[in-house]
């Protein structure tokens, strides 16, 4: 590392990128899918169909149904969450938490009758969304791992910018007709550089969404560690009301819903009922975000026992708090309409591609010469690459496929969907270990393509409704992409010499004699 700034940054970029690459790829894929979280959830609950809009009266009645169900089934829970129905998502979703650390229980009711709905049990898009930042681990573990990987990704981005000496000269350059290494480096550079504003934004704002968990020390010194007090004082939540410790009776929820709707113009999204059996019970009505980049939900808090309004939170954030909520808003992109959402999705895919090409580049540039055996580290990285880059998409496809194929009534259905997801991933990763490297890529990509086709076909055969045509088409497009990749890998032959059509161009010939500096330093370091 005494070789100068750029060399040490090249080293840092290579190794920081490698150690977190596989986790980052999973985070990027599931995060990118989460831009369509509600569409995935709708697809996975095909029994739900769009309904007429819900009037305030309908919502009040639905909330009453929800509370009645929770009183009966979740009497000793500390918190109840009721997601109210909307025309696009006409279901009453209930969650409750009994103890911190235990997974929440849930139920879905028909908002018009209060009966348990006949929907298939599934976690839908929420599974991918939570996987994006918790990796299906206990939240504390998952969030710390993802956060650490995100910080290392920031380091990799900064060092990547430093080592890319020809960032402007190579801005548009993607040489497919040179060596494999050249092509992968160009692909890594193009996806990294063109998507750079997005990559920097999404990584930094991603860390910021869980900032207080990762960096609680400001709250420690200024608020003696009281997170709730900080959030309330910065205007992001209504003031917390600690339980009184005496039993109390929850007032009827209907009038509170009506009053909340009359107070705030945005649509009512959900209700949180804290300490529902306590004398200091609190009902918080949370509304959709008003049009804007910032992630701030208007909220109205009620005294749960008297039913009186305690607090109304609507706008009025100070600059730093506004910066924080805008960063969170940019990360989640709730504000994006269909057109802009496509662009966010595209940028997310570029992030996936940047991570994947970086991982492949590591192994390609360490490929042994003909006749030499591959060293263990290379074999490991190669297998992990295949296992992640085709394994995870296969798992997503199987998750969707399981949703259509598992019988609707079976016990723990959503659990089986998730087991199918991980089962597929494990099988793909093991297959990658057992097969020769190139074959593993081809067969893996073909398997992914086949699985996406299968998911779309299963939908057409079991549900077959026109409203899912767009979603199924997207699955087929993904399948086509993987099929194309499989074809590319299987027909690829390393170029023996440069193509003649290019050689008559002096500038090109000059450019080809001049390998990118970053790459050269990387080589130097590897050999050192």
């Amino acid at each position, binding site marked *: 590392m005494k070789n100068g700034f750029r060399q040490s940054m090249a080293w840092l970029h290579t190794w920081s990128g490698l150690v977190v690459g596989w986790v980052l790829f999973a985070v990027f894929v599931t995060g990118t899918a989460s831009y369509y979280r509600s569409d995935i959830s709708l697809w996975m609950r095909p029994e739900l169909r769009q309904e007429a809009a819900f009037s305030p009266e309908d919502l009040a009645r639905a909330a009453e149904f929800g509370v009645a169900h929770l009183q009966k089934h979740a009497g000793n829970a500390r918190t109840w969450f009721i997601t109210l129905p909307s025309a696009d998502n006409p279901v009453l979703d209930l969650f409750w938490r009994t103890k911190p650390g235990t997974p929440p229980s849930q139920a879905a009711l028909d908002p018009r009758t209060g009966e348990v709905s006949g929907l298939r049990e599934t976690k839908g898009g929420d599974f991918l969304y939570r996987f994006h930042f918790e990796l299906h681990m206990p939240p504390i573990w998952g969030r710390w791992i993802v956060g650490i990987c995100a910080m290392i990704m920031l380091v990799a981005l900064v060092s990547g910018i430093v080592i890319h000496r020809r960032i402007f000269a190579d801005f548009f350059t993607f040489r497919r007709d040179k060596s494999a290494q050249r092509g992968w480096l160009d692909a890594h550079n193009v996806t990294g550089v*063109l998507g750079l504003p997005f990559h920097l934004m999404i990584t930094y704002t991603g860390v910021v969404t869980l900032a207080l968990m990762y960096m609680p020390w400001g709250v420690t010194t200024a608020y003696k560690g009281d997170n709730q007090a900080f959030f309330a004082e910065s205007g992001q939540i209504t003031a917390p009301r600690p339980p009184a410790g005496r039993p109390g009776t929850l007032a009827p929820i209907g009038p509170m819903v009506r009053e909340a709707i009359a107070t705030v113009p945005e649509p009512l999204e959900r209700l949180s009922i804290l300490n529902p059996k306590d004398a200091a019970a609190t009902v918080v009505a949370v509304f959709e975000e008003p049009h804007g*980049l910032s992630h701030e939900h208007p909220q109205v808090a009620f005294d749960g026992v008297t039913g009186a309004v305690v607090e109304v939170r609507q706008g009025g954030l100070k600059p730093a708090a506004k910066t924080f909520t805008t960063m969170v808003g940019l990360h989640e992109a709730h504000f994006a309409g269909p057109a*802009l959402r496509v*662009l*966010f999705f595209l*940028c997310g895919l*570029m992030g996936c591609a940047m991570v994947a090409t970086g991982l492949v580049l590591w192994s390609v540039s360490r490929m042994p010469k003909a006749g030499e055996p591959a060293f263990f580290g290379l074999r490991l990285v190669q297998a992990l690459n295949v296992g992640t880059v085709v394994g995870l998409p296969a798992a997503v496809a199987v998750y969707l496929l399981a949703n259509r194929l598992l019988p609707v009534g079976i016990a723990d259905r959503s659990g089986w969907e998730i087991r199918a997801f991980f089962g597929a991933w494990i099988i793909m990763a093991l297959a990658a270990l057992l097969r020769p490297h190139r074959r593993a890529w081809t067969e893996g990509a073909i398997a992914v393509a086949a699985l996406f086709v299968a998911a779309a076909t299963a939908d057409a055969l079991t549900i077959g409704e026109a409203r899912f045509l767009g979603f199924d088409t997207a699955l087929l497009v993904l399948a086509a992409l993987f099929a194309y990749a499989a074809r590319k890998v299987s027909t690829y032959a390393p170029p023996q010499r440069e193509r003649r059509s290019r050689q008559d161009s002096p500038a090109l010939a000059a450019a080809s004699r001049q390998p990118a500096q970053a790459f050269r330093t990387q080589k130097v370091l590897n050999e050192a």
Partner: protein
Amino acid sequence: MTPIVLLLTIGLSYVGLAALCLGMNRHHSAIFEARPDPRRALLLRSAGWIAIGLSFASAVHFEGWAFGPVQWIGGLTAAALLVVGILSYRPGLILPTAALVLPVALAAAISI
């Protein structure tokens, strides 16, 4: 309105980035079999920056200072991806597509 503004942003960015890339020796000679002479390069580059500047200005004008820059970056990224894709798979199409996109973008601007 957003989709049309995005169309305008992507169109102007595409024209701008295409001009910028044609103003570079390597890409110019890949398409025209010769380096651009200095005047031509300067012209292409300034036209490129002007088009990109216009795409930013129009995004901010129609969408405001909050959404404008966000949509502009999204559109610019998409346009850059298009330029790179076309440049490496069908380099001959860069000029015709840019010529085609310009009137579409202008029509979008008028229709807003």
